[in-house]
Each structure stands twice: as structure tokens, then as C-alpha cells.
């Protein structure tokens, strides 16, 4: 199998803080890899390093077998950043935002019919086609998240990189998105995604990589206990008061 993402011994600092301390992360073609870990463990930083947004202070990174500094084939990647709530005030519709993703293919050229179709298709995949003309400011958090996923899907990527795509998405929509993702995966798409709960995605995940304080502490089958937490109706209020401040997951490893 060929390797889509190969990150070896990656270290990165933000401010003066070491955030990644020798991360190895390999994703092979067709795999679905979940990146797990507590808040602040470096998941987003690792993801942003993979897409070239955080410079590595040491270590190596190859995308599709090409070292990052020579990688130009960005249209092969669909990226969903962790959602931020910053809004500039200038209005933009759902369709306008999703179309911005398609620029990975059109670059400085004009959009063609196939590009418009890809945008509409991406909107349908996340169930936002009926809101295409609405301004994004008028959406709920979960709907906004689905728009960002559509923006990545509009690229028709070989590799989807998503930072907490399910944050704030209700369970019903999570099921829809899981279905969408399953379809993409069956078509051969490779996926690297950050999750806090495996949720409806659990059956799709081939492998889980768990970060703690910028180090990989687990790389293998997805932890089973997570499935329990992710079951619908599972009560997240743990009775052990002493551990209340601890993220639930850290005890597992």
C-alpha cells in the first residue's frame, strides 16, 4: 500500500512552547485514521503541520510521497479546519463559501460547469442544498460545520483532513455525515480526522492515533471503551467526583 501521509519525528513549537515532541504519523491509501487526545494535546497542531500551516522545527513530512516543501498538488487534499467563531461582518452565502473550496481545482481560472456541479453535489452530501442561498451568519454551529465539510468535499479530494468535523453536529446529522464519509471511503478516499467521540463514525475507523502532550501514546486499533462513551444516551456525567476535572479519555492509556 502506498503512503499518503508520512510524518516522522515531527517537532513543532508555538510561541516558545513545544507542542509536538516527536510525532510519527503514517496514513496509508484508503485508511481512515482518527487522531484522539485531550484538549491541548496537540491534535490541531499536528493536523495543521500536515497541511503545511505549522512549520516543523525538526523531523520530516511527506504528502503522497513528496516532501512538503515540494508538494504542489493541493487539489488532492480536502481540509476542514477546526471551526472558529470569528466573523468579519461581510456577508457570504453558503454557496459562496463552499465554492471557495473548489478554487483548489480552478485556481486563478474561471469556474466551469463541472465546478458548479461539484459545489452543488457537495452541498447535497451534507444536506445543506436547501440553505445554499442563505448567509452563513444565519446558520447554527452544527450547520456551519457542515458547510465547512462541504467546502472540503467540493474539491473531490483523495485525502480528507478534518479537525473535529463533528463538533456541535447533532446525532442525526452525524449519522448523515457518517454515511457521506462511508461513501467517500468506499470510493477510495483516505481520511485523517480529529475526534473527541468516535460516535457514528466508529465502524469506519481503521486506526486510532492518540496524542498526549505532543507525543503519540497509542497507535493501533481504535480503543473499544470509546465506543461505550459514544453510544447514544450514554451518560457523560461520571460519578467519580475526584476525576471530574480529568478528561475522560486519559485514564484509558
Amino acid at each position, binding site marked *: 500500500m502506498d503512503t499518503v501521509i508520512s510524518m516522522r519525528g515531527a517537532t513543532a513549537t508555538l510561541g516558545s512552547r513545544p507542542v509536538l515532541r516527536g510525532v510519527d504519523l503514517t496514513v496509508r491509501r484508503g485508511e481512515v485514521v482518527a487522531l484522539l487526545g485531550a484538549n491541548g494535546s496537540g491534535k490541531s497542531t499536528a493536523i*495543521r503541520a500536515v*497541511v*503545511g*500551516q505549522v512549520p516543523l522545527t525538526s523531523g520530516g513530512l511527506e504528502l503522497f510521497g513528496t516532501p512538503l516543501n515540494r508538494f*504542489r*498538488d*493541493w*487539489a488532492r*487534499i480536502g*481540509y476542514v*479546519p477546526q471551526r472558529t467563531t470569528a466573523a*468579519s*461582518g*461581510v*456577508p*457570504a*452565502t453558503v454557496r*459562496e*463559501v463552499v*465554492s*471557495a*473550496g473548489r*478554487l*483548489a481545482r*480552478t*485556481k*486563478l481560472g474561471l*469556474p466551469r460547469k463541472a465546478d458548479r456541479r461539484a459545489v452543488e453535489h457537495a452541498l447535497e452530501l451534507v444536506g445543506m442544498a436547501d440553505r445554499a*442561498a*442563505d*448567509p452563513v451568519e444565519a446558520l447554527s454551529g452544527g450547520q456551519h460545520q457542515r458547510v465547512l465539510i462541504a*467546502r472540503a468535499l467540493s*474539491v473531490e479530494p483523495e485525502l480528507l483532513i478534518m479537525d473535529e468535523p463533528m463538533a456541535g453536529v447533532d446525532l442525526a446529522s452525524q449519522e448523515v455525515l457518517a454515511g457521506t464519509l462511508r461513501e467517500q471511503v468506499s470510493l477510495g478516499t483516505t481520511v485523517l480526522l480529529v475526534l473527541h467521540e468516535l460516535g457514528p463514525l466508529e465502524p469506519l475507523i481503521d486506526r486510532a492515533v492518540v496524542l498526549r502532550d505532543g507525543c503519540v501514546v497509542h497507535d493501533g486499533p481504535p480503543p473499544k471503551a470509546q465506543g461505550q462513551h459514544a453510544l447514544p444516551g450514554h451518560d457523560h456525567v461520571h460519578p467519580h467526583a475526584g476525576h471530574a476535572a480529568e478528561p475522560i479519555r486519559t485514564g484509558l492509556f
Partner: protein
Amino acid sequence: MELFSYAFMQRALIAAVLVGITAPAIGIYLVQRRQSLMGDGIGHVALTGVGLGFLLSANPVWMATAVAVAGAVVMELIRWYGRTRGDIALAMLFYGGMAAGVLFTSLAPNGSNANLLTYLFGSITTVSPQDITAICLLAGFVVLVTVGLRRQLFAVSQDEEFAQVTGLPVRLLNLLVAVTAAVTVTVAMRVVGLLLVSALMVIPVAASQQIARSFATAFALSVVIGVVVAFSGTVTSYYADVPSGATIVLLAIGVFVTLTLLAAPLAKKRARRAAGDGTRCTLEVPAARPTEDDVRV
């Protein structure tokens, strides 16, 4: 309409319309990326160019363009590399630019601060034929960039990190926005003046935001507002014998206030239309308590 028969008024109106188009066209991207005051900074820097123009007896519009573009490029580089001390560096650039402009002007053989004032606050009726040529060429460039690359500039201004991951030449596009803003400043300099340039970049955009729901509408509406206030402001300044720049800016603020007041009823009307069929979804709650308990009864 006697005012259209004067050559100086024809030039003034052409310049006004071009400013009305270009200032909001680039301004919308500046607002989108939260750099609303960038135009103001470039305006300060451009004054050095005006001063140099007086000193070297060159056309101040072209000199201002050269200096403003250089200043905008420096600002963009500061934004890119010097995040931590960036605002101090920008302050140096702005006030240094202004001070140098005043100094150069006073050193110039025929320069006086009265000359400088026409650039600071605009003096549309003194626009020369050479100025008009320069303004037309520069405005053409601004329109080409802001309309031709609108999809790319929208993407870069909306989510820079994402745009980078799509493989767009983000640094180049950022630089292009900075340069285009600088060019717009010099287009607008003769009409509204360097101190009020930024107003025409920001206020029409702010006004259109009140009612527009898409970027495309906001863009078009800002340009329409820009043209209307620039044209009517110039005409007003002719008849009322008041400075054009100030008139234009106050008219723009008037439009902003009007649209802000209109926005609420408009949103209500939209909501009513959206709920068109009038179906409601009140859940029939079985009476849990005897009705006597209900205070409203």
C-alpha cells in the same frame, strides 16, 4: 445643466465616479480581512509621495502612487513576518510618511502647505487633464483586480489558512490586495483627500452589509452606493460651494444610517415571507395543571 459644460467639472465628475467604483471595490476585501484602517495608513504614507512630487517637480499623483505602493508592500511584509511588534512598526511607517510629506513640501521651491491641503482633503475642481489620465489608468487596474480575481480574493480574505491549503498563491494575492489598495488611495486622493480616503473604502461596505445577504450583492451594492455618493457629493459641492471630500463622506454616512434603519423592517418582512404558508408548530401540551392555577386566566 450648466455644470456639465465646464471642462473642469467634467473631469471632476469622471474622477468622482471612478473613485466611487474603486474605493468600495477594494474596501470590501479590506473590511472582510479586518484591515479597515489600512487605507488610512496608506493615505498617510502617500503624503510622502505628494511631497516628493512637489520637491522634484514631478506629477504628484504618480509619485504618490509609487510611494503608496512601496508603503503597502512594506505593510504587508510587516504583517507577514513581524507579527509581534507589527503595530509599532506600522505606526512608525504612518507617521513617518506623514512627517516626510510635510517636510518635503516645505523644502520644495513652489511648495506651500496650502498645496498640501488640497491633497489632504481633496480638491476635485483642480483635477488636471494629466491627473485624469493617471486616475483612469489606475482605476482600470483596480477594477481588473477586484472584479477579475473576486473569487480568489474572497477566498483569501475569508479564510486565509484554508486558501493556503487549496494551493492558491496566498502571499501574492495578499500583496496584490495591498498594492491595489495603495493604487486606490491615489485614485481617490484628488477627490476625497488622503485623510478621508479610507472612509469611502469602508462606509459604503458597512452600509451594504446592513441589507445584503451574499458577498456578490454586498460587492455590487457597495459600488452603487460609492458611485451615487461620489457623484451627488461632487454636484452638491459645486452648487453649495463646499469641499467635495467632506460632502461625499457625510453623504455616505447618511446612506449608512438610512440603510441601518431600513434593515430591521426588511428582515422582518423577509421572515414573514419565509414563514409564508403560516403553518405553526405549537405543541398541544395536555393540561398538566388545573386551569385555575394559570394566573393569566
